């Protein structure tokens, strides 16, 4: 009887065990077969375009190649290297995927001269009209507290890596069936003698199972389950499959809330380059990190990491993965990890990308579907903007010794395309946090003025020479209060031409103009240019009592820089699905929002802001003949310091202030302007050079009086653009003689008959 019970019990236990194994087997097989790593979207910067005639300098080219971790070599070997020979640079470009093509790896020869790129040729010597570098990976969109990874195919894995993993972690990988009893026994023996866990007996398969299916709690039940799962996996999948899974799965580092999973991402995370390009010592370091990503963190504990790497190299040498002298040579190399600062990490920009995409994609698509996102970020401009903000704020802090550290934000665009090429959300650019560029909503201050003047010009009753009164005024508000604005200097300037009122940012004159054209009209101009909400229709709106974020300010000013056309600011150009088949383009759109003529007249006045008004201090930074237009802004009590301005190819908006909204003691000219000027001076930007519309003519007026001058009779003159046929009062003694006028008319007549 007892025996029967025992047999039955045994049978039952076997059955239960068998069933459990079947269950585990099914679970493992199913999950593993349908395995799809959640693939965070990868975000890329704009590629650098290479073409004859590009103003790219050698220094800029080298910086770009350095960002992409190209190695300078004497003889081109493989993609990711370049060499220099006099004016000639040979670049072995890596293969890359773009929204519109798969570009295979190719060798290009560039000739660089004083004015930039003189020629681009392929390896057969043929001229290549246009080529581009691969886009720089600038980050990924991973779930909060989630795993980030770049999946690699077996072809992208250097053969050294699996060999090293086997040598160091699992010598019998090729032959065992998921578990390695001998290795377990050895581990038990070693650990028992040491009295603590010193050696793991886990095979690579077990490590994979543990990472893929289980959490890290170590209990006997879990160990058993892990072993069963490993055996089950080995029953169904080949070694190559398992190795590839391991390489893509395993945890290799923590970066804030981001878990660095797999060797593909680890290679980018630690070395800033693709896995396929790692050398012996770099592969060894990654293999070393497997054992304890935080204990052997090469950035935080370089000595530990190095000791372990050298041990890995020694084992690799001993077990014939590499030659012993190769191991020695590799062990003599430094770790070679990138510092965080030099890595591409632009949290404020990524934040904008993420917000943009939330409109069109579910969060899950972004964090799991393996999308490739191509953005407009220009690393060079971004670095320049970060650098300008950090350095100038440090200088201002030293000068002003305020109650706290100044903060700031900057947005840079290419006005014609609406591409946002740089965003700085804080002076601590390496940390994600409060993104002031997108979220700090502050009074617009005098940045509003050009839009008041634009509205005035559009009525046809004003031009740049129109005399306006800068005089004390009081406005009775609906609630019975009286509003009495003042100039910044607390002085009044009497009758002044419009161009001067704008250049010197005179409050009283501006309020006069604004009240004359009407608050609703001014509000409408702001909204058509891109202000996303209706501003309160108080007279104080005319002095900038309208809250905007730096990004919104950039959107509004972009219309001035783009000749009266609104172009939605874009960070994302296109998104490609993981299989490369679906492409979503975020296309360029333009909408006319103001007559190009009126905008031209305003832009010419904004040029005078830079020549002789509140923007003049910028000239010390900028190349002498660079034409720029811009406007300073200061909110009441000097709480916000703004500057918005543009050249022919760039628009930049800078805000400086305190997070707690305390007064800074800075005007737009003393706070934001130096940041703006330093930023613009490093962009290699081109002059603002819009051709004057045919319905306008240039005229010269005396700056203080606005009277027209037609001869060389006085020094204090400025050029303005006015509608053809505008009769401007001429300064006595400065008119062209009457005969001249006759000649002029004769000329027009002559031209008419010749046509």
């Amino acid at each position, binding site marked *: 009887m007892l025996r029967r019970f025992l047999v039955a019990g045994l049978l039952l236990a076997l059955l239960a065990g068998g069933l459990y194994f079947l269950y585990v087997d099914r679970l493992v097989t199913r999950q593993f077969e349908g395995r799809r790593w959640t693939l965070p979207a990868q975000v890329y910067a704009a590629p650098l375009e290479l073409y004859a005639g590009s103003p790219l300098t050698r220094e800029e080219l080298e910086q770009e190649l350095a960002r992409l971790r190209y190695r300078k070599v004497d003889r081109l070997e493989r993609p990711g290297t370049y060499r220099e020979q006099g004016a000639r640079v040979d670049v072995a470009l890596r293969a890359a995927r773009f929204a519109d093509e798969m570009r295979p790896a190719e060798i290009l020869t560039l000739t660089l001269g004083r004015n930039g790129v003189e020629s681009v040729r392929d390896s057969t010597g043929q001229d290549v009209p246009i080529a581009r570098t691969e886009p720089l990976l600038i980050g990924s969109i991973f779930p909060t507290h989630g795993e980030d990874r770049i999946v690699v195919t077996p072809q992208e894995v250097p053969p050294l890596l699996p060999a090293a993993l086997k040598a160091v972690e699992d010598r019998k990988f090729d032959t065992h069936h998921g578990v390695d009893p001998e290795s377990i026994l050895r581990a038990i023996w070693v650990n028992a003698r040491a009295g603590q866990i010193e050696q793991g007996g886990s095979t690579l398969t077990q490590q994979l199972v543990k990472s893929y299916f289980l959490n890290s709690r170590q209990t006997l039940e879990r160990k058993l389950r892990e072993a069963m799962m490993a055996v089950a996996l080995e029953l169904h999948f080949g070694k190559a499959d398992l190795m590839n899974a391991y390489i893509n799965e395993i945890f290799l580092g923590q970066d804030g809330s981001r878990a660095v999973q797999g060797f593909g991402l680890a290679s980018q995370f630690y070395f800033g380059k693709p896995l396929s390009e790692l050398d012996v010592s770099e592969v060894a370091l990654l293999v070393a990190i497997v054992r304890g990503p935080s204990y052997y963190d090469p950035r935080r504990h370089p000595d530990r990491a190095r000791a372990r790497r050298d041990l890995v190299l020694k084992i690799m040498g001993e077990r014939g993965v590499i030659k012993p002298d190769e191991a020695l040579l590799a062990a003599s190399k430094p770790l070679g990890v990138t510092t965080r600062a030099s890595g591409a990490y632009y949290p404020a920009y990524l934040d904008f990308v993420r917000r943009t995409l939330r409109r069109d994609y579910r969060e899950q698509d972004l964090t799991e579907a393996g999308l490739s996102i191509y953005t407009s970020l220009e690393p060079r401009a971004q670095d320049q903007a970060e650098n300008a903000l950090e350095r100038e704020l440090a200088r201002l802090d030293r000068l002003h010794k305020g109650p706290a550290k100044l903060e700031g934000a900057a947005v840079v665009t290419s006005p014609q395309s609406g591409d946002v090429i740089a965003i700085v959300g804080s002076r601590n650019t390496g940390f994600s946090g409060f993104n002031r560029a997108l979220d700090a909503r502050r009074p617009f201050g005098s940045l509003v003025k050009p839009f008041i003047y634009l509205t005035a010009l559009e009525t046809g009753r004003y031009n740049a020479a129109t005399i306006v009164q800068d005089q004390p005024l009081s406005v009775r508000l609906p609630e019975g209060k009286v509003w009495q604005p003042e100039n910044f200097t607390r002085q009044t300037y009497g009758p002044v031409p419009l161009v001067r009122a704008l250049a010197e940012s005179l409050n009283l004159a501006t309020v006069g103009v604004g009240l004359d054209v009407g608050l609703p009209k001014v509000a409408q101009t702001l909204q058509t240019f891109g202000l996303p909400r209706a501003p309160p229709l108080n007279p104080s709106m005319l002095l900038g009592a309208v809250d905007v974020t730096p990004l919104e300010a950039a959107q509004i000013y972009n219309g001035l820089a783009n000749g009266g056309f609104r172009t939605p600011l874009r960070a994302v150009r296109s998104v490609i699905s993981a299989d490369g088949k679906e492409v979503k383009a975020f296309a360029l759109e333009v909408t006319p929002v103001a007559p190009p003529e009126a905008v031209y007249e305003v832009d010419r006045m904004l040029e005078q802001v830079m020549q002789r008004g509140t923007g003049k201090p910028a000239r010390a930074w900028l190349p*002498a003949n660079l034409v720029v237009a811009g406007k300073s802004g200061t909110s009441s009590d000097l709480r916000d310091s703004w500057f918005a301005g543009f050249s022919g190819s760039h628009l930049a908006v800078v805000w400086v202030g305190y997070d707690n909204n305390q007064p800074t003691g800075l005007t737009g000219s003393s706070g934001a302007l130096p940041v703006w000027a330093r930023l613009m001076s490093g962009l290699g930007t*081109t002059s603002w050079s819009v051709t004057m519309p045919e319905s306008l003519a240039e005229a010269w007026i005396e700056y203080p009086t606005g009277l027209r001058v037609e001869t060389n009779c006085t020094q204090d*003159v400025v050029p303005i653009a006015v509608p053809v046929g505008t009769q401007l009062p001429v300064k006595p003694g400065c008119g062209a003689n009457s005969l001249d006028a006759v000649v002029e008319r004769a000329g027009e007549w002559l031209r008419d008959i010749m046509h």
Partner: protein
Amino acid sequence: MQPTDFPGRRSPHSTRGLILLTALSLAVTACNSLRAPPYQPPSRPSGPSAPGPGSAQPGPGQPQPPTPSRPAPRQFRLGPAATALVAQAHKQSQGGQQELAAATLERAMRIEPDNPLLWIELGQVRLNEANAAQADSMGRKALALATGDPQAQASAWHLIAESLRARGRNQEGAEAEQRANALMPR
């Protein structure tokens, strides 16, 4: 810094003025001696920058008289890089890949953002996509950039005309067509 510190750079308006003056001096030589020395305003640090890779701009010349300043005629062309990209965009567009064609044209526009010919090309792609409103806007943007180039202006008006007709605004379309033909008789 005073404006006079800047080296003299000219706006594009003066060549026409010069031609005019030359014509005048031939026609009214007698008056020439009576003319006051031409007024030279303090040089303005403006005018066009170095021409883009493809755009034809007048070269530097004499200081300009104050009035009248008329834009010199010019003719926009595409540089080699943009030419190659436009050819690629045409292929993509003919193959029905309008989005890709647009992306390719945008790539060209990053190289020559001020070239109206590229905006006209992009407007054509928008028309192919049946996005007449954007085609119209592209035409107007091109028009604003094409100052002084009657041929480019005419192309922009053709595009605008087409986009108007595509939306059934035939009367306005005909007017736009007339403006095109007045600039560049076919």
